[in-house]
Each structure stands twice: as C-alpha cells, then as structure tokens.
C-alpha cells in the first residue's frame, strides 16, 4: 500500500494548516521530518526540518497507529502555521523522502471506507462530499485541457506514446519487419520529454505564484525613497523612514491587490558597499530576494550602479524622489504612483495570461516522477541496453503523467505501432 499525503485544510493563509500522511510509511516520514514521534494517540511539539536540516516550522505533531485512525492506517498529522510558504516547504520535504506521494481526490475517504473507519452518518454524508470532489476534479481537468496547455500536453502525450510504441514494437513484433535498433529515436524522444517536462515544472512554479501571490522588489541606492514608496503604496506606515541612509536593513513586505492579483511588495535595504556587518547581511538578503522576485522595480539615482547579480534583471525603472526632480516617482507626494501601478499591473497580467492554468502540486509531482523514470530509461538504454527494462521505466513514467496528460493505454501504443509499421508477416 502506498503512503499518501495531502493538505487537509484549505490552501491559503490561515491560522493553522494540517498536513495528513496516511499509510505504512507515515511513521518513518514523521521521524525523518521531526526527529521523533509522540506516542500513538498523543501530541507533541516538534521542529520540522527538511533533509538538509533546514528548519521549516514548529508544529504540533499527532500520530495515530493503525487501526485507530481516520483511515485505519498509520496516520501522521502535522499542525503547521498556516503560511503558504511553510505548507509548500513541508509538502516538498515529504515528497523528497520518496516514501509517499500526493493523495488523489477521494483517496483518504476511499481508504477509510475500505478499512471500515467511517460511521453510518459519515457514510451517508459522503456522497455529496465526494461528488463535490469529483466535480472540482472534472473542472480542474477541463481547465488543464483547454487552451495552450492542452496543446503542449497533447504533444507530450504523443512523444510518450511514440517512445513506448517504438520500444514495444521491437519487443512484441520481433519477428516482423520493424527496425531492429530504435534506441536513437527513443533517446531523442525521451530527452525531448525530459526537457519539456522540466520547463513545465518550472513554469508551474510561476503558476503557483500567481495563485499564492507575486512578489515585486523595490530596489535602489540607500535613501532613494524606497520605504516611503512602500508606505505610500500600502497607505500606512509599514517601514520606518528617515533621512539617514541605510535605515531599512531587513526585507519588509506589504501585500496589496493590484489589478485583481495578489502582489507582495518587498522593501529592501539600499544597495551600497557597506562596512556595517548588519547592513551587509541586509544588502545580501535584498539582492537574493530581489533575484527571486517576479518583478524588480528600480528607483534610479545618478550615483547608483546595479549590482552584478541583478544586472539585466531590472523590469521597471523610474527616477527617485520625483518631488525634488519633478520627474519619476515620489512616495511623499504620490507623484507617478498611478503609472507605477499600471505598469506593474500590465506586466503581471500579461504573465498571468500566459499561464493558462494553475498546475496542481499533484500534477507537478507526477511530472517530477515521470522525469525520473524517463531518465532511468535513458540510463538503461545507454548502459546495459535491456529494452524490456527501459520500456518498464517509460511505462511507469507515462503512468506518473496520468494526472497531467490523461491515461496512456496499451491500445494507444498498439495503435501507434500499427499505423506506423506494417505488422503481419
């Protein structure tokens, strides 16, 4: 039985977020993340860490021993702080153990039912619940298959079917007139699949950012008016402002609604060579966050040179302290703010439009597993050349892609073979 996990509470900012892990590997996963587990049926406070020992959160941890749990299996519950970033990091850490996969819709319920863990009232209420899940799943699938993504997914599907078909042809039709060595073409197809999927995985992170919030970093020399601008945008005093250069040391965030999109503005330490240790840390943090942000806005002053790490990455730039120069932006007077907001809104909307769908974590998980299987198929083809083992990896890879490209059936593969090769000696 596979171990599965899922966020049991609604995704988004909340007081508490609960991730539930169910299956035989629940305990090993708990130990991997939390060091040790409380007694079954008890709770304990634990620090949650990833494989590199980074602290992700402090969580209330509950452990239930088979059969005394919601699903009737070993169940681990992590009650985390309800932050999107924390949830994402913990999900990734569970995935990275390789012991569990993301649960499919209805899967916890199904396990609970199989193990007789729901009472009559619950059972009777389930019809509607699962119906809702099904409907949500159907709509999600429909979104995925409408528009640009469907085209891309269709192409991936064709490549996967072709690669599987070529391998299958040499296995199942060995006494027919089919090519003896298909590995060059299969390798090409698999490399293409891996490249496309990797790009898609990267792209899906953008999609997730659209859902969870985009980041806009405000950059500039010390005392260019970045904190004043942030306060003006937020309409309240979030950042301390003063005439003293280097007032802002850490990254300060303000979450705003820009044209219907959730946007987090980041006020960063002014960028300059500094001897002050604390300011230095602030500056390096500013550069890191700015590099990772979706958009970088520069408040330009004459004496300012863009640090090398950010060169070519400035999306928008405006003159600083417009109240003094008469041009550009001023947080103090509000000059140019409308232009700034319009510019940001335009760019981000355009990017959002390109991301036609929000690929779910489950779909991304499928893509990642597929990439790993396709890579193993390649290793086999280059190495021992055992075609039946390479075929197995391709098959498992396609299976992992089920939730993204739809199920690839043996009939699809046979169909490709029969249309391409004249089988029937």
């Amino acid at each position, binding site marked *: *039985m*596979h171990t599965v996990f899922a966020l049991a509470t609604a995704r988004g900012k909340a007081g508490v977020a609960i991730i539930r892990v169910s299956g035989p590997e629940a305990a090993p996963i708990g130990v991997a993340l939390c060091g040790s587990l409380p007694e079954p049926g008890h709770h304990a406070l634990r620090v949650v860490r990833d494989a590199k020992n980074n602290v992700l959160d402090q969580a209330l941890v509950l452990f239930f021993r088979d059969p005394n749990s919601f699903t009737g299996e070993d169940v681990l519950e992590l009650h985390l702080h309800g932050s999107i970033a924390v949830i994402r990091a913990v999900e990734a850490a569970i995935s990275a153990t390789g012991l569990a996969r993301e649960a*499919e*819709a*209805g*899967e916890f*319920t*199904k396990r609970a*039912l*199989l193990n*007789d863990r*729901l009472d*009559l009232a619950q*059972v*009777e209420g*389930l*019809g*509607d619940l*699962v*119906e809702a*899940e*099904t409907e949500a*799943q159907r709509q999600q699938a429909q979104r995925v298959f409408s528009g640009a993504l469907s085209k891309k997914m269709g192409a991936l599907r064709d490549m996967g079917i072709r690669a599987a078909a070529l391998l*299958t042809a040499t*296995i*199942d*039709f*060995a*006494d027919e*007139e089919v090519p003896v060595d298909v590995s060059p073409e299969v390798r090409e197809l698999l490399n293409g699949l891996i490249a496309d999927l990797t790009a898609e995985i990267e792209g899906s992170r953008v999609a997730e950012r659209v859902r969870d919030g985009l980041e806009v970093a405000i950059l500039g020399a010390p005392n260019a008016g970045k904190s004043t601008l942030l306060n003006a945008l937020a309409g309240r005093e979030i950042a301390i402002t003063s005439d003293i250069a280097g007032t802002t040391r850490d990254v300060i965030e303000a979450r705003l609604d820009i044209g219907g999109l959730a946007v987090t503005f980041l006020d960063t330490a002014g960028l300059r060579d500094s001897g002050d240790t604390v300011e230095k840390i602030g500056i390096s943090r500013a550069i890191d966050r700015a590099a990772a942000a979706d958009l970088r806005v520069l408040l330009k002053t004459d004496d300012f040179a863009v640090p090398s790490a950010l060169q070519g990455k400035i999306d928008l730039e405006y003159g600083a302290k417009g109240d003094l120069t008469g041009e550009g932006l001023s947080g103090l007077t509000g000059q140019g703010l409308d232009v700034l907001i319009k510019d940001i809104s335009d760019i981000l909307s355009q990017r959002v439009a390109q991301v036609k769908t929000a690929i779910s974590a489950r779909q991304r998980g499928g893509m990642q597993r597929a990439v790993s299987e396709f890579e193993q198929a390649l290793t086999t083809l280059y190495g*021992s050349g*055992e*075609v*039946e*083992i390479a*075929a*197995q990896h391709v*098959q498992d890879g396609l299976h992992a892609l089920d939730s993204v490209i739809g*199920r690839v*059936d*043996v*009939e699809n*593969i*046979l*169909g490709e073979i*029969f249309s391409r090769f*004249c*089988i*029937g*000696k």
Partner: protein
Amino acid sequence: MKHPDFDVVVVGGGHAGVEAADAAHRAGAHTALVTLRAADLGVMSCNPAIGGLGKGHLVREIDALGGIMGRAADASGIQYRLLNRRKGAAVQGPRTQSDRALYAEAIRSHVAASAGLTLIEGEVADLVEHGERICGVVLADGSEINAGAVVLTTGTFLRGIIHIGDRKIEGGRMGDKPAVRLAERMMGMDLPLGRLKTGTPPRIKSASINWDILEEQQADEDPTFFSFLTTEVQARQVACGITHTNTKTHEIIQQNLSRSAMYGGMIEGVGPRYCPSIEDKVVRFSDKDSHQIFLEPEGLTSDLVYPNGISTSLPEDVQHEYVYSIVGLEAAEIQQPGYAIEYDYVDPTCLTAQLELRARKGLYLAGQINGTTGYEEAAAQGLVAGLSAALQVQGRDPITFSRRESYIGVMIDDLITRGVAEPYRMFTSRAEYRLSLRADNADERLTPLALSLGLIGEARKRVFTEKMERLQQGRDLLNSMTATPKEATAVGITVNADGKRRTGMDYLAFPDLDASDLIGIAPELADLDDATARQLKIEATYATYVARQKKDAEALGRDEAKQIPRDFPYGEVIGLSNELRSKLSRVQPSTLGQAGRIDGMTPAALALILTKLRQMDRKSA
C-alpha cells in the same frame, strides 16, 4: 437414444474445446466432449505454428496448469525459434512451426488416453434450459445430454460467412457446414453481439515452389520447449523459406482492389490490425514496395506450404496472378484459395471472470466466440471455462485468474472489463507486470494452484517439486554468501569499490555476471546445475523490479478483494456520472479492482461505490 448424464458437456473440438474438456476432466468432473467429427480434434485451421510473444507465455501457463497444448506443440514442433533470444528473459517467447498431422495426433491420443473423458460425435442443435439455467444440450438427432454445466467453444459459427472475392459461402470454416439451429438459439438469447473478420492466405503445394533460390530461416540449435515436462526434440527440424512481394505484385492487387471482398464493401466486420490482408498492406503502406512472406511447411509429411503474410479475400484468378509474380512462386500450384471469414462474436463484457454468461447460469463461452483470435488464446480460455464449469458443478469455490499472476488473468480481465474492438490477441505489452510474468517462471506462478485443485498427476508434481527444491537451495546459497568489493575483485569480478557488502544474488543482478563467476567466493556454487543457475540469474536480473511491482500489486490487491455483488444498483449511486454509470452497468465488475480498470474511472467514483456497498452491508446486517 438416451445419453448418460454428465457434470460438464463441452461443445466443439477445437483448441478451446479440447482444453476445456481436459481441464474439467482433470478437475474430477464427469465430462463429455461433443464434436462434429472426432477426426477434427486439434485441427489448426490457420497457420501451422504455436507460440510467439505473449502467446508462448500463454502456452507455458496452460502447461503449468497441466493442460495439453504445450505437450502437443512439443510433440509436433518442427522448427523451434525462441523470439527475442537476445533480449531479456521477460520478453522471450517460445514459438514453433508445428506439423499439423502430428499436432492433431497428439491431441487425439491424449483425449483417447483420458479414461473417463467421453467423446461424442454429433452436432449440437440446441441447449436445454430450465429458467435461466442451462443444463444440457440437444443433438441434431433429437437426443438430449443432461449436464450440470455446458461450455460452448464453437468458434466462428455465429453467422459465419466465407468470402473469396464476390463468392460467399456460409459456414464457420472451409468445408464445415454452419451450425444454424444452435446459432439461432444463441441469437435468441438477446446477447450483445459484434462482428469481426479474419483471413487466410492461399495454400501452396511445396513441390511447386522453387526453394533453391529462396532465403532460408533455420530452427534454433538449442530449442526452448513449451512443456515443463519436455526434455528433447521430438520431430525432425526443418527450415522455413522467405520471399517477398514486389512492385508487380502490388500493381496486380491495386488493379483488382474493387474485386476484393474487403475493399468491394462486401465485408462489414472489423479485422485485426496486426494481421492485415495483403490488400490492406498494399493500400495502407503504399510507400513500401515489398512485404516479407514466410513460407511455412505444414508438416514433415505434408506437401503443403502456408505462405504467411499474404492473406486475402481477392477472387481466385487474382490470387493466382499475384502469387505467380512473387520470386520462387512463379509456378506455384494453389491447393486451396485464400479467403476472409466474417462472423459474430459475443461481447465478452457480459461474461464473468470464470467465462460464464451472467445472463445464463451454467453456460460458459471460450475461444473465438468471445472475440479472440489465436489457438493459444482459445486454449487458455478453454482451460479456464472447463475448470470453472467443473468447480461450479462440484460446489467448489470459483477460481479467478489475476492480472498480477498470469497472462491468462490479463486476457480474461481485458475481455470481460473492456471488451474487444478487433480480434483480441495477446501481446506482452498488455501485461503491466511483464517483468514478473515470464515464460520461464509460469510453473512457479501457477503449478501450486493446479496442485491445490488436484489438477495434475504425480509425474508433473514430482518434476515441479524437485525443481523448486533445487531453486530454493541455490537461492539460499546465493542469499547467504556475501562479499565486499575487495573480496569480489580478488576473484576477478569488476565492481565499484564502494565498500558495500553484497549477497550472491546482488552480484548475480550485474548484467555480465553468472553464478559460475561467483564460485571463487562460494565454491559450493559449482554444484548448481545449468538450468537452476540460469533460472536464478533471471530472478536476480529482475529482482528489484519484481519487488517494486509486487508492492504496486499489493496496493491493488485490497481493491481486488472487495467484491461487488452482481445486482449492484449503479443507478442509485449519487454523484456518479452518467457515462460511468452506464459503463459500470454493462461490465458489472465483480471487484472494486476490476471497476478501477474501466476506462475513465476515478478514485472518487470508487469511493462512491464503496459508500453504497457500506450502506447495503448495513441494511442487510
């Protein structure tokens, strides 16, 4: 005339029929096999060959369960070739050309030697029905045979029509008269039917072929047998000839397409894509100006050759013309023209996993009537139907062959869950657990089941038990011996110096290592016999994959164990889409696992079905 009563009556003496009768008989049922002519038992009506990829696996499984086909194939094998010899064991398929006469003789003598298996010559004209239960057959002479269960293996007899160009002949096989009354009875049962077609090439006289100028394909030097009991070749090995069609051949076919039954619109049935007629090949692959033809001898004493690759429904004169255009066949004498046959089949989604009609208790269907093609597929179904019929009559628990354990299980599950769109043939790619379901371990997988059901005799039991003992000893030895990379290097094994201590089985998993390479570490390995060493090498090669697949399969196992009753009210399940509801109602899956394999099924829908099951359990409790 009054016939005695039987437990099981099998109708039809083809590959499905004899295997069904034999299985029922071995299961201890009092069995009768009714066939038109006793002389026709075990006739190969298509090409004279047994086995191949997927098909060879099926024959091995039939043999592992004590069936006939493997031994008959070995008794008649005149050109053994192990397909995919250079690939891994999981995808190797034993195949042989068979001498038709020797094959049929092997089947006939096996049936004759089965004391208590009654052979009745006659035409079954009708079924005896009590309520919704079938309990016997009526012969054309009016006599009745009562039986606890009936297995129908009547091939292409339902509205079978043979086409040779624009000539139409009613009948299920060349020379056989159609079984009209029984067909009418079946048609009256209101079963879902579909229409399929298949074809054969013209048969050519061997002496008229110019063999001297043709390329030859030889038999394997060390043949791989079908039966686990066979130890040596039983018939002289011969070569096949190879020739090709050419542009002239294709021109003739192009010019006469409208006279082909298939292309002239005379046939409505769907043909198999993997066995196209020569007309199909020329039209669909018009960029190819040559297609391979294997000239397969029909036997050591036969003067006929089966030209594999040019099946056709063109008129006789065109067949002559295009055959003459082929190198080596310039003076070919055609003994029997090629023909296409179309026929009705029963949509197998109306069958249970035991191949019993859901709508008629006691009536089992096996073979081509279920939409399959091939001797091996037919025989495997026959075995399942015959065995299941016997178990039912004896009041024993039914057996379900699982996809995880056998190709037989894959085929039956495919048939009853998904139905067929073209004549169904086995391929290794249909088995998701291909690396576990190998021809080499069919006995390990299935013989224990046959033993527990009492299907096999002492001789086979002894061979099997001794083999398993040797394997276990070897396995224990390899698992208990260990060596560090340093120790391995000392005896000439190249391995990464990672300091990891490995077992003998771990080392055996390296592609270029054999058990004999490990003798330096464990001298006892020198005592391993070749067959055991070979088998353990195969086991080690796939060990990691098999373990992984086993885990996957276990996850599915729970779903397979969850039974869905026959009358499950899909209409009452809130939240199921109409599409799924109608598919489920048609297929009537017997387990949650089977439901999960229906096209378009989701975990959420399965949860809904489970919910309903829970509610029903509570109401009945």
